[in-house]
């Protein structure tokens, strides 16, 4: 339970870092650390396959996509940085207060019987479920991936024509 708590606190702190970071690159790195902490939590919750997926895809691939997208944007001038910093402090100071309030409310209204978890156990391993029980999901994944590839091609084709 202590390890769970430490991991959850770490995950929340990394999320806060991603949200409060001034530079976009630091925000993306914060997001990657959040994903890594989440992967460890998943491993603790008896979900190793999902943890490996989270670690490789979300921590690795999505971070790479974000960083490659950020490299296209031009850096801010020192004047813009000063202006943005003032603006950010004004916009983001309520967030820690809001988070503390949400935490306090949730601890106060702690309802033991609030969640009644019905146990409907699906037999089989992950691969059985993925290949046999949830075949439609697999077809959906293939369609989504193809649509994604097609979409990216169309987006960059349009961009190169404009240039």
């Amino acid at each position, binding site marked *: 339970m202590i390890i769970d708590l430490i991991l959850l606190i770490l995950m929340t702190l990394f999320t806060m870092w991603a949200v409060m970071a001034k530079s976009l690159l630091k925000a993306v790195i914060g997001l990657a650390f959040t994903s890594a902490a*989440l992967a460890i*939590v998943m491993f603790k919750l008896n979900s190793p396959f999902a943890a490996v997926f989270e670690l490789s895809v979300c921590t690795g691939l999505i971070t790479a996509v974000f960083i490659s997208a950020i490299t296209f944007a031009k850096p801010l001038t020192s004047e813009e940085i000063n202006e943005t910093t003032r603006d950010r402090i004004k916009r983001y100071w309520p967030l820690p207060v809001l988070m503390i309030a949400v935490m306090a409310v949730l601890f106060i209204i702690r309802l033991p019987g609030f969640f009644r978890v019905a146990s409907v156990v699906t037999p089989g391993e992950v691969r059985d479920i*993925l290949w046999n029980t949830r075949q439609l999901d697999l077809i959906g994944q293939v369609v989504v991936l193809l649509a*994604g590839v097609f979409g990216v091609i169309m987006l960059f084709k349009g961009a190169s024509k404009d240039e």
Partner: protein
Amino acid sequence: MSSALINLLWTYIVFIALVLVAGLYYMLVTRNLMRVLIGMEILMKAVTLLIILFGYLTGNSEFTQAVVIVVIVIEVVVVAITAGVILNIFRKNDSLDAREIRNLKG
């Protein structure tokens, strides 16, 4: 459910709620399109953890893992496409600020 499980569930629920609040606030307050996408990713992390948590509590980890794998694949495609759209917007407007995108307005 035993009291130990309820304690575990409630601790996780509190932190998931915190991450959800942070992601939602980020999406609502920021004007940078790339940061909106990061906010969406943060929301996805909270939802993924919630799915995994209930799989663990109900003894259905295998099923929820299969669902989470599908969610992650969809997440990657959404991020790739949205990043492409944001880059195209940046090329056209020379800015990532949502206030300056008025091409479709009115």
